[in-house]
């Protein structure tokens, strides 16, 4: 999984039926220190995350499909947790 911050939301009417009712959030991957890293991704939300929250995102199809709870869902990213706090100790 990766750490990311929710930066926006996407509205889509015409989409695969597995996305029906799912929230699509734009997330910016971040380092543990909170620095943006790489391009924005689009993830389905399964935990009720909102804009500006730090989240945990799975970047793998099967795991993302399980988070969405729908068979044969064409997804590759899902928010699976909201981060309360991160404690990183580097030498």
């Amino acid at each position, binding site marked *: 999984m990766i750490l990311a*911050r*929710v*930066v*926006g*939301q*996407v*509205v*889509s*009417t*015409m*989409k*695969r039926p597995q*996305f029906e009712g799912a929230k*699509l959030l*734009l997330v*910016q991957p971040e380092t543990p220190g909170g620095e943006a890293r790489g*391009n*924005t*991704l*689009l*993830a389905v939300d399964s935990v009720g995350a909102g*804009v*500006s929250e730090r989240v945990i995102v799975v970047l*793998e*199809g099967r795991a*993302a*499909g399980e988070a969405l709870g729908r068979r*044969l*869902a*064409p*997804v*590759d*990213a899902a928010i699976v947790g909201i981060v309360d706090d991160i404690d990183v100790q580097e030498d």
Partner: protein
Amino acid sequence: MQLGRVIGDVVATRKDPCYEGVKLLVVQPLTADGAAAGRPLVAVDSVGAGVGEHVFFVRGKEASFPFHPVEVPADAGIVGIVDHWTLGER
């Protein structure tokens, strides 16, 4: 998934038979600000997207799921047309 914009279509006569009747589009990945991000790629379309439209696409094996039970050998697929997106305060 990633945001993208459809910038072209691909015509291929000789191809894997699983691609028969499948639309292939050229997609430019975008940042949240709408700027181009990285190189364009070819994606299979399962939502009726067209050139100029904003879309979101999935990468990996999941790109073939909309064509189930046909196992289309694709690694990128358009799975939604974007009406609009909003950015929040950071």
